[in-house]
């Protein structure tokens, strides 16, 4: 039996974890970063432990385990002077707060992450930061500001020569959806289709599911219901396989609505029933959605 170098194993599982995050396989990424954390503890290597905790937080956030993801980040942020750690902890705190609807606080941390970025020559991180700020503005329904942030993030990606690598797929997808909210449907669809192609090439299942979901919404809004249903079903399939709970709920709503508009009441009932099952305390939900078109007042990317 050969001795395995824990440092080499740490590097391997961390690198693989990062790839898994970019592909949208968050549960497996969490396993990898948990293992990296244990290895860092065994080696009693504090900087590696901090890095593992930050990576773990990123993966948990992406998986939707918001409270778990937030744990310990403030303590790390208070103690560190390393710009890279400040960037990761601040942007993760911003994401966690955004998911809880605490958007003003989220914006403060996102801007702190951006300040940390200024000291690091990494266009990918800067672009990620502006994408995050764009997301917060979009959640606040400040759509023009959000579009400006996404466009700036894309220009940074271009400047940094990121091509079509991560996070360009997400930025394009968010920009496209934001344009849909601004009712610029054709322009939004064109950009989401670009994002879809990039996400396919990158093997990013999370971004892919978001693209299909948003295309489903877009086609519903321009009354191309057949296409809307087709994309909604694709999003639902990925969301089910990967356990993307937020997308799952949105798909039940979209497919319920689109099938109703297509006159297929049986299928519509099926999807609205699935959504209703998630809200047993709200028996009015299904009849509410069957009666009223709420598509113009909702934002599918608002976490709360």
């Amino acid at each position, binding site marked *: 039996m050969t001795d395995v170098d824990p440092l080499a194993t740490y590097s391997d599982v961390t690198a693989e974890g990062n790839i898994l995050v970019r592909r949208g396989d968050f549960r497996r990424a969490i396993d990898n970063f948990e293992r990296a954390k244990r290895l860092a503890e065994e080696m009693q290597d504090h900087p590696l432990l901090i890095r593992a905790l930050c990576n773990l937080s990123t993966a948990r956030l992406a998986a939707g385990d918001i409270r778990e993801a937030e744990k310990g980040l403030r303590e790390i942020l208070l103690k560190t002077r390393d710009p890279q750690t400040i960037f990761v902890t601040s942007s993760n705190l911003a994401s966690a707060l955004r998911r809880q*609807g605490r958007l003003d606080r989220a914006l403060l941390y996102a801007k702190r992450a951006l300040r940390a970025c200024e000291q690091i020559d990494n266009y990918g991180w800067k672009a990620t930061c502006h994408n995050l700020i764009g997301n917060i503005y979009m959640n606040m329904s400040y759509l023009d500001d959000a579009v400006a942030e996404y466009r700036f993030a894309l220009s940074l990606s271009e400047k940094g020569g990121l091509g079509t690598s991560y996070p360009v797929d997400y930025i394009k997808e968010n920009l496209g959806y934001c344009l849909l909210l601004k009712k610029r449907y054709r322009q939004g669809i064109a950009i989401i289709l670009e994002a879809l192609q990039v996400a396919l090439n990158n093997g990013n299942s999370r971004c892919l599911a978001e693209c299909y979901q948003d295309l489903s919404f877009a086609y519903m809004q321009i009354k191309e219901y057949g296409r809307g249903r087709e994309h909604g079903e694709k999003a639902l399939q990925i969301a089910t396989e990967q356990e993307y709970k937020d997308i799952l709920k949105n798909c039940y709503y979209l497919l319920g609505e689109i099938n109703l508009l297509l006159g297929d009441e049986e299928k519509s009932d099926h999807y609205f029933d699935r959504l209703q099952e998630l809200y047993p305390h709200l028996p009015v939900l299904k009849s509410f959605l069957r009666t009223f078109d709420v598509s113009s007042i909702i934002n599918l990317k608002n976490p709360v």
Partner: protein
Amino acid sequence: MLMAKFKKQSLLVGSRIRSLRKDRDLTQADLAGRIGIQQSDLCRMENGEYKVSLETLFRILSVFEMNVAEFFHEDAAGAIKDRDAEILRQFHRLGPRSQEEVLDFMLFKLQIEDKLSTGKKSN
């Protein structure tokens, strides 16, 4: 024209939330706290400027503990009937141009009914 209709619908939902909140003697801060959003966002939602998640929309329904008809009507007596809901649903399936034609036709029919009732009165 299409945009104006969407805006009108957002305003309708927002203004309905405001009137329901006032009926229940809730301040903006009270309701915002119960549905988990910020007061300033609730204010913008009531003005039709803020888009909500499905979660928040369902939470609002839950807070007001109401039925579908109540949400969009000032009183229970004016509750939406199944037929009205069906008409509304089918109307939304139409393209913008067809919706305009339906509205024009309705106005035309109303004018005829007005003329007929005026004729009956003068007779």
